[in-house]
């Protein structure tokens, strides 16, 4: 069973997933842009895989292209899950 996607659970999962990709954990905030974190399209596919595994939410390439900040990604996952 996928976990329940709340702002809190999704934030924790996404922060953790991004921190594993290179950025320092303290730099990973809702307002941080993917550009500033040096997170590119390949990295975002990995984040999407973690999200799908955890919450059962499938994110496609076109969904990812619209994302600018970490907060955008969290909001999208929470919206899709509900």
């Amino acid at each position, binding site marked *: 069973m996928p976990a329940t996607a709340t702002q809190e659970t999704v934030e924790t999962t996404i922060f953790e997933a991004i921190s594993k*990709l*290179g950025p320092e954990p303290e730099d990973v905030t809702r307002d941080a842009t993917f550009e500033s974190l040096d997170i590119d399209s*390949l990295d975002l596919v*990995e984040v999407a*895989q973690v999200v799908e595994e955890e919450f059962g939410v499938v994110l496609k390439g076109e969904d990812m292209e619209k994302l600018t900040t970490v907060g955008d990604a969290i909001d999208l996952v929470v919206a899709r899950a509900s």
Partner: protein
Amino acid sequence: MSRRVVITGVGAVSPLGNGAATLHERWKAGECGIESGVGACNDFDPAEVLTKKELRRTDRFAQLAIAACQEALENAGWTDGEELPVNPERVGCVIGTGIGGIATIETQHDVLKESGPGRVSPLGIPLMMGNAGAANLALRYGFKGPAFSTVSACAAGADAIGTALRMIRAGDADAMVTGGAEAGITPLAYACFGAMGALSESGISRPFDARRDGFVMGEGAAVLVLESAEAAEERGATVLGELLGYGASADAFHLTAPEPGGGGAARAIKRALEDAELSASDLHYVNAHGTSTPLNDRSETDALKAALGEDIAKSLPVSSTKSAVGHLLGAAGAVEAVATLLALRERIAPPTLGYEVPDEGLDLDYVPDGPRPLNANGRAVAISNSFGFGGHNAVLCIAA
């Protein structure tokens, strides 16, 4: 008159340890980097050189290439300032490999089988692709000239360096960062080489010895910075040596076995000497391919006699780096080019370790008791041989 090409930096990661000097000093001292029948780079910690992001985005073979490149660029004085001391658009990069990112292929195949296609890594392809060595070096250091990889099994490292030489001569680049990288000590690669009967059952690499029973798998990387002589002089670079020539040929005989009599290898040796505008009598040392397989060491001995003439072949010190590190496959030619250069600079022939029992017909001077001083007045000249499955032969002619 073609452009002269000089060597201004070298770097290596090998089973003897990190650094080109470590490779040279330990081999010269008769030390062996093979443990439990494998030549692994146990001292190599990629996290010492690569960022967290780079670590995730590279297979081990590319990590080894980056570490060797970093050392080579420091050695060449390219990393002292913010910018490259040469026009980046005039710097190319050719890095050979035999197999590429095979560890990634194996782990991603496990993911595919266990969890399905939706779970494989989006980084799988850029990690496993054979050109990842050249791609990562170009990306990391900003080399904007031609960049690609050579894939010719165990001749790939030498083919890369020879190709880089040609590219400077042809005017494609003023400087080339070139070499080879391999990280094939994986369950699948090891099992496949074992199934061929190519690996040593004794786990001992003793090239040219009558008891030799196959090669010992190794891993590692080496990178050289090549520059046109004018470009090196213009920036006041320290010249370590000169890459005089490159010769290559194909046996067109058998998928894996060398041509008996070494005819294909002999043609590559002759071509390298012609390319260097030298004759056999100008040589002081031969860095042999010397794999420790029954077939190679015999056909290579025959090839040297055929190419150089029996008298000259017997008068030259011939030794195999693989006696100290095992067979580094696509990295072998590059690691051995670096080892050859450093040996020439010190005017010595390092020893063939473990050579004790002569085999019939294998009657060259394999330097069992080295290191041997080279009898060179003025510059010292060597050839470094590399031959690969597929019948690929590549020979470099180096001077220092």
